[in-house]
């Protein structure tokens, strides 16, 4: 392994970036922390922590419901964050940006609002076999509620969605296609552009689960042409408990609210309630205001790094880590798609992923082990679990070296 350098990707200095993340300065079990679990949740840079702190110490009040100065300032901060998010994914209007708790809530919103109101017996929802449980279970619930049917497009041994099969499953009964942009368990980048085109030509809508995509490459929802796009702040160097559901305005306007309460109404009487306009129609109750502020700061931060440069840096780390790990005896990489992003899932012969996770942790290396909320993927590969290393803007070649050294340690223990 080469001596740690900043990065081979020009214009991206991960060692410098690392200094923006105070949490990474600590030691775990006597070793410098090597954080390789950003796919589960990424760490937050100082810029995000400070934006949230400033909001909490200078601005906080409830939004949209006061004439006092702080209430106005908090409303401006919250709605400013919405505009920031609009720009981040290039939506047409802030009316298309619904703040939610995260990807899971965004998908459930579409399932319960669009799905429950518009789907029925004979209708089909199409997903793929590599989905996170968050993009499976909400649709199963809608199927139970409405009598519509869930179809699943298969994946191949490399962990790629079988595009031909998926296209073959599309038909006039297909009302909605819901697919991940990037698989969290395998790293596969799904060709969502092709899927959007084909689905639209069948008259079906498309929801993209962008949880694993937004932090790794620029997203342009207009270019993708998708109807819904959901993502989480905490995988984007932002806070937990905040995320975005993008929906095309024409669709959101026609969809019924899914939760009732304050914020989402215009007038309430016991005879008749009228709903607020977009996007507030879908935001019942006091929202996560500081979360939105932190998310906006995270988007500023990511764009200041340069998403293209970041993507190149992570590609470099993934290539390097893949090559280094493949050389170790007994390692099998799970997910070998031609196009992958920042996720490296693997197993080691003779050492259960759970044991691997403990041994790596003892070396200060944080990885995720388990089924990654994608049990059907584990079943497909006939394994109970994998070990998964995932990369973010602060990871360096030294982290890859530490991962490899820790894996060698595991082999030593289990030899």
């Amino acid at each position, binding site marked *: 392994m080469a001596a740690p350098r900043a990065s081979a990707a020009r214009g991206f200095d991960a060692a410098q970036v690392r200094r923006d993340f105070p949490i990474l300065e600590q030691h775990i*079990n006597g070793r410098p922390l090597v954080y390789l679990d950003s796919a589960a949740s990424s760490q937050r840079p100082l810029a995000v922590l400070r934006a949230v702190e400033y909001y909490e110490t200078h601005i906080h009040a409830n939004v949209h419901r006061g004439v006092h100065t702080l209430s106005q300032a908090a409303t401006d901060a919250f709605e400013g964050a919405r505009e920031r998010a609009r720009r981040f994914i290039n939506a047409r209007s802030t009316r298309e940006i619904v703040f939610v708790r995260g990807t899971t809530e965004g998908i459930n919103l579409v399932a319960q609002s669009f799905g429950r109101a518009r789907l029925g017996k004979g209708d089909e929802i199409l997903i793929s076999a590599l989905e996170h449980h968050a993009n499976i279970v909400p649709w199963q619930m809608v199927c139970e509620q409405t009598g519509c049917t869930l179809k699943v497009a298969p994946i191949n041994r490399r962990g790629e969605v079988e595009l031909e099969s998926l296209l073959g499953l599309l038909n006039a009964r297909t009302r909605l296609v819901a697919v991940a942009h990037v698989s969290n368990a395998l790293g596969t980048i799904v060709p969502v552009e092709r899927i959007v085109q084909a689905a639209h030509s069948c008259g079906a809508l498309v929801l993209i689960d962008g949880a694993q995509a937004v932090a790794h490459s620029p997203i342009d929802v207009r270019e993708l042409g998708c109807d819904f796009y959901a993502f989480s702040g905490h995988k984007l160097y932002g806070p937990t408990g905040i995320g975005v559901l993008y929906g095309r305005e024409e669709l959101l306007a026609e969809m019924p609210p899914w939760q009732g309460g304050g914020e989402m109404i215009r007038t309430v009487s016991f005879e008749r309630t009228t709903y607020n306009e977009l996007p507030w129609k879908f935001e019942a109750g006091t929202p996560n205001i500081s979360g939105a502020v932190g998310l906006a700061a995270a988007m500023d931060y990511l764009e200041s790094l340069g998403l293209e440069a970041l993507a190149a840096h992570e590609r470099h780390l993934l290539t390097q880590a893949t090559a280094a790990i493949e050389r170790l005896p007994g390692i099998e990489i799970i997910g070998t798609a031609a196009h992958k992003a920042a996720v490296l899932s693997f197993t080691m012969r003779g*050492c*259960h*992923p*759970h*044991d691997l996770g*403990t*041994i790596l942790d*003892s070396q200060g290396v944080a990885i995720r*082990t*388990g*089924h990654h909320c994608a049990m059907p993927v*584990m079943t497909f590969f006939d394994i*109970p*679990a994998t070990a998964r290393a995932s990369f973010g803007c602060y990871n360096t070649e030294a982290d890859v070296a530490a991962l490899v050294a820790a894996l060698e*340690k595991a082999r030593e*223990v*289990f030899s």
Partner: protein
Amino acid sequence: MDLKDLYRDVILDHNRQPRNFGVLTHPDAHADGHNPLCGDRLTVWLRLDGDRVADIRFEGKGCAISTASASLMTEAVKGKDRVAIQQLYERIHTLLTQPHVAASDASLGKLAALAGVSEFPARVKCATLCWHTLNAALEHSADAVSTE
């Protein structure tokens, strides 16, 4: 945190070569256990002689801690009656969660090799899955038990 304390030679040995591993034909009772968090699965079969476990076997897929714990358990409970097994389980539980209380418990024999698990709270469930499953089998419950 010392890895050697968790992965003691006894543990590694019982993981590599689990004892009493494989199906028990004509069992009097059996139960399935599952730890959804890590995907560990385990089946325990028993042959009973009155109140006593005359024979016990297990099969499953799991991490080293869960496999070794099950293997050690089968050796330890064979020939014991329900009351003795229940007392043993309580001592194991203390060993896994309050190691200082259990330190002087010499009666645990080889099972004492599990002491290191207490330093790794995330792994305690791996070591107890087999005991919960044994318990379910003893209660003649055919239902799958879960540690979640």
